[in-house]
């Protein structure tokens, strides 16, 4: 790292910002059902997940190497501008799906962004299309099915075995089991996703000539990537947590345990056997499976459908934004500056839009009942993929949820008050 140009510096910062969005986007994977079943309090849950992500980031550097030389052809003239444009595409898509409260794959956003930027800037030669199908498309279809079936069968089994037992008493055991499974998911997430960012930063350093090809990520890269993802995880993507914990189906302790165990198992099995599956899709699939496995359980297919639509759109949408950014960034220094300014403005706009109807640790377990406010520019753009205001099913479930979380609840005000005092 003797000589790092301004451009490389910008790329590194952008990569860390992406890592941060990755963290708060994916907190839901490990902690959404843990929070909605009451196994852990919202803040405890995200804090535990953050620590485990940080620990996971230090455990190995194997995944970091698959980014470079995998989907993007390292030797085909990728320049830092291209990586920068790809990251901008991925960040913006992550923020948009977060605003809509949809769990979509951060890895797909990253791949989509890098692919889009490479296509525009280098051409078809820079992308290995076989690898896209193998590493992105097939796993995206397989992940929810594998995890869903496993979680569904496990849910059926546990309900059958525990028939006739006191719910209150078994719930304690289920919650404890769920915490263990959620911890495994968090740890696995840290080893996987923090390393993707390390891989990108290393790739940028290599293309900029600051590192020799095929080097391992330097220590400062590992530390900063780990910290960025942990910070993002700790702040928590409460919107997505609410969708996964409450929006798709109503999760009870046995279901939460089965879903989380299924997710942890599938993630570990897939990474160990060598057929990588996306964490987000595995976790969403297992939540749906657990919803189907309980008698009388309801999966809200409209929410699930929007989620699947977001999955399908992730790769092309991030690619499109990144392609546009690459076109601009290729114009030289003023182009890169313009992309950076536009990206910051867009992030600010999305954040401002999110403040209109904030979701945080105080109201994460409430189901939305208020219909949408007057439609703004950004909300209009994402309305096609936004989860609907809760229908009759959610309304029926609402009082139950409110009673179980805060006994003396007049819903919104009371739980907000307890949240701020604790």
């Amino acid at each position, binding site marked *: 790292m003797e000589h790092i140009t301004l451009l490389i510096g910008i790329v590194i910062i952008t990569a860390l910002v992406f890592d941060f969005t990755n963290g708060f986007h994916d907190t839901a994977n490990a902690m959404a059902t843990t929070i909605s079943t009451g196994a852990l309090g919202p803040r405890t849950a995200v804090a535990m997940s953050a620590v485990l992500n940080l620990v*996971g980031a230090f*455990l*190995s550097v194997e995944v970091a190497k698959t980014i470079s030389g995998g989907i993007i052809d390292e030797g085909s003239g990728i320049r830092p501008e291209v990586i920068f444009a790809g990251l901008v595409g991925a960040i913006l898509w992550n923020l948009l799906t977060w605003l809509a409260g949809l769990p979509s794959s951060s890895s797909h956003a990253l791949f989509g962004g890098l692919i889009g930027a490479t296509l525009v800037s280098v051409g078809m030669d820079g992308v290995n299309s*076989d690898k896209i*199908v*193998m590493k992105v498309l*097939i796993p995206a279809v*397989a992940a929810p099915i*594998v*995890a869903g*079936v*496993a*979680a569904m*069968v*496990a*849910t059926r*089994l*546990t309900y059958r*075995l*525990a028939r*006739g*037992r*006191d*719910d209150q*008493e*078994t719930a304690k*055991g*289920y919650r404890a*089991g769920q915490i*263990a499974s959620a911890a*495994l998911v968090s*740890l*696995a997430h840290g*080893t996987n996703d923090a390393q993707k960012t390390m891989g990108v930063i290393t790739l940028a350093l290599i293309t900029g000539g600051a590192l020799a090809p095929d080097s391992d990520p330097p220590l400062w890269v590992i530390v900063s990537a780990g910290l960025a993802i942990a910070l993002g995880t700790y702040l928590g993507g409460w919107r997505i947590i609410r969708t996964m914990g409450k929006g798709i189906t109503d999760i009870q302790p*046995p279901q939460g*345990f*089965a879903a989380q*165990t*299924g997710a*942890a*198992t*599938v993630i*570990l*099995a*897939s*990474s*160990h*056997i*060598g*057929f990588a*599956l996306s964490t987000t899709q595995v976790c969403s699939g297992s939540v749906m499976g657990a919803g189907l496995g309980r008698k009388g359980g309801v999966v809200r297919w409209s929410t699930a459908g929007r989620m699947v639509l977001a999955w399908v759109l992730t790769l092309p949408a991030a690619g499109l934004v990144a392609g546009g950014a690459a076109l601009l960034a290729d114009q030289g220094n003023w182009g890169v500056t313009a992309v950076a300014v536009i990206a910051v403005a867009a992030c600010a706009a999305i954040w401002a839009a999110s403040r209109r109807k904030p979701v945080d640790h105080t109201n994460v377990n409430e189901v939305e009942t208020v219909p949408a406010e007057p439609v703004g520019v950004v909300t209009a753009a994402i309305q096609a993929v936004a989860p609907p205001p809760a229908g009759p099913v959610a309304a029926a479930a609402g009082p139950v949820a409110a009673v179980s979380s805060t006994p003396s609840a007049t819903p919104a005000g009371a739980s907000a008050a307890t949240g701020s005092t604790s």
Partner: protein
Amino acid sequence: MSIDWAALGQVFGVSLAVTVGFVGVFTLGILGTSRKAQPAEAGPGATSTTPGASATAGAALGPARLGAYACFALCAAAVAYGINLIVA
């Protein structure tokens, strides 16, 4: 382009077996450490006998409780193996 069906099938099979096995064993552990639900129709007259009943149930639970701890130990070993997979 070739899809690695064998690996995918393996992931599916292993995931299904381990998830169902883990959840099953853990549930057995929960069964061993929890009591049966009190029947709701046991009226107010039945409450006086409850202490004695639960005491005998507690004695009978000895081996069940031991089995339950074995189940939990098995699950803890599985979690440890999982951590080992992540670290390795």
